[in-house]
């Protein structure tokens, strides 16, 4: 019999659209309403041929199927024997699983880091430097009359962001809004803009600081900034000053280019300055569905949002030193546990090369690129499809992830797998003492 699940939270990006209607027939998802192309693709195809259905341990060039007990035992042994293990990933699992992961990293005395480290880590640094004027996405939807996307292409990367929260949405108090896009290229989102400003690559900091000057009614003694005529920037400054409620959403166009966290400092400072004149908020366009939740759980458990080092017996945080990529580039880690992430596919090549030299344990539903190179693969359920949990939307609002269908027989959740490894690690440590 067909069953329709309503108000399902989408486990793809940090928009966490919670209005999906998912139809299940004989234990299989057969239809998804309201979802974007990414959402439909994941929910309808998650159980494909790349699914791992048995724990695996590497035997030379091949993997051998083993029991969870055996794989957990071996994983715990590798981690307890290591001096400086790295626990990496966490952005595509539940807050409940992340909590256990942090406990495991603390128990072993390793470094735990999230994919923020290679995405919006600089945003966190910027926020720690100068604070953040922000709001929920609901407030933006109902009140904002000016939307700016800076270094971000939501029509492609967050397909329903504009439809649910900004220019294509109808708010209670605000239906029409102006759209400004600042980017190095005329993206799909830029083509929809009332004003598109094409900026030279790596020049965001200069433009943001120029705008800070212009909104104060001061003059710039140059004709162009980053290839943009000052008159165009004056037009943007005027739109910013004259709006009633503005919202600036920024993407990795600020965090991954020259300036990194200093670009974010400048963007937040611009918004802070604007709040002397009008109401304006700023928000990072977070990527994976629970990368925000990872920051949250890390912060409430350790005091720090990512790149937390427990090797001294207490949490230390110093991105650039305790961050995953720096540790891998310095070739310091001697084992790694990767959960809900694919660093071999996403890290710079030199970092990935050191990662796979480590004894490598992967917890993932799929045979990802990282899993292909692992020593131990522990298959897990898909959170938000086969397991419930909690995730945080990009505006720091927690939402429930539902269990819609049963997982394949015998497959455990990330939380259960990590709890088993933690239990085994504690048993090994007790025996050793």
């Amino acid at each position, binding site marked *: 019999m067909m069953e329709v699940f309503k108000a399902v939270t989408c486990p793809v990006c940090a928009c966490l659209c919670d209005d999906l209607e998912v139809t299940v027939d004989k234990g299989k998802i057969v239809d998804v309403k309201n979802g974007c192309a990414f959402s439909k693709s994941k929910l309808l195809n998650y159980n494909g041929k790349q699914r791992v259905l048995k724990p695996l341990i590497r035997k030379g060039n091949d993997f051998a199927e083993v029991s969870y007990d055996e794989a957990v035992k071996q994983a715990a042994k590798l981690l307890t024997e290591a001096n400086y293990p790295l626990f990496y990933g966490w952005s595509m699992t539940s807050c409940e699983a992340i909590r256990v992961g942090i406990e495991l990293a603390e128990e072993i005395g390793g470094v735990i880091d999230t994919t923020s480290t290679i995405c919006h880590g*600089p945003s966190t640094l910027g926020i720690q430097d100068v604070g953040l004027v922000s709001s929920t996405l609901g407030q933006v939807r109902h009140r904002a009359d000016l939307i700016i996307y800076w270094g971000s292409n939501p029509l492609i990367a967050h397909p329903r962001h504009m439809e649910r929260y900004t220019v294509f949405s109808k708010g209670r108090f605000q239906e029409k809004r102006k759209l400004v896009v600042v980017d190095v290229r005329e993206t799909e989102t830029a083509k929809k803009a009332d004003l598109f400003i094409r900026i030279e690559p790596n020049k965001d900091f200069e433009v943001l600081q120029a705008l800070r000057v212009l909104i104060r009614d001061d003059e710039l003694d140059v004709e162009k900034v980053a290839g943009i005529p000052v008159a165009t920037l004056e037009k943007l400054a005027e739109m910013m000053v004259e709006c009633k409620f503005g919202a600036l959403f920024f993407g990795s166009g600020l965090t991954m280019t020259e300036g990194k966290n200093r670009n974010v400092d400048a963007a937040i400072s611009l918004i802070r300055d604007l709040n002397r004149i009008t109401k304006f908020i700023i928000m990072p366009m977070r990527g994976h569905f629970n990368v925000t939740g990872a920051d949250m759980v890390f912060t409430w458990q350790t005091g720090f949002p990512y790149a937390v080092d427990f090797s001294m017996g207490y949490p230390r945080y110093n991105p650039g030193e305790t961050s995953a990529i720096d540790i891998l580039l310095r070739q310091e880690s001697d084992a790694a546990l990767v959960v809900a992430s694919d660093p071999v596919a996403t890290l710079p*090549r030199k970092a990935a090369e050191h990662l796979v030299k480590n004894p490598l344990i992967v917890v993932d539903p799929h045979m990802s690129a990282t899993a292909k190179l692992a020593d131990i693969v522990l298959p897990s359920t898909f959170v938000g499809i086969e397991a419930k949990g909690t995730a945080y939307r990009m505006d720091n609002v927690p939402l429930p992830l539902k269990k819609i269908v049963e997982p394949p027989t015998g497959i455990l959740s990330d939380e259960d797998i990590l709890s088993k490894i933690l239990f085994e690690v504690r048993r090994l440590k007790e025996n050793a003492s």
Partner: protein
Amino acid sequence: MENVTVCYLDEDSMKKLGIEEGETVRISTKHGSTILKALKFHGEQPNIVFVPYSPWINNIVNPDTNGVGMPSLKGIPAEVEPVKGGHVLKLEELLRGILGSRNDGGF
């Protein structure tokens, strides 16, 4: 894989560099090089090659984190040249390269 083994150039850049749509190109930075299929970008994007985030470009990005933990994955100076009939690596070939130094495994 075909969605990420491509790069996008605007019409002017393709003309200037003598690149036909669908032809393979070599993208080189001071960190390495990679071969991808060139597609036309329908919009303003002068002197920029846009490449989707994937394992195929991890050897050409700048791994230096400037002491803040974040490598530079955008805004990297690069050269683009046509390579007629160039070989776009398969994922297995790429992974074999990453695994190369380990000497105890493969697939």
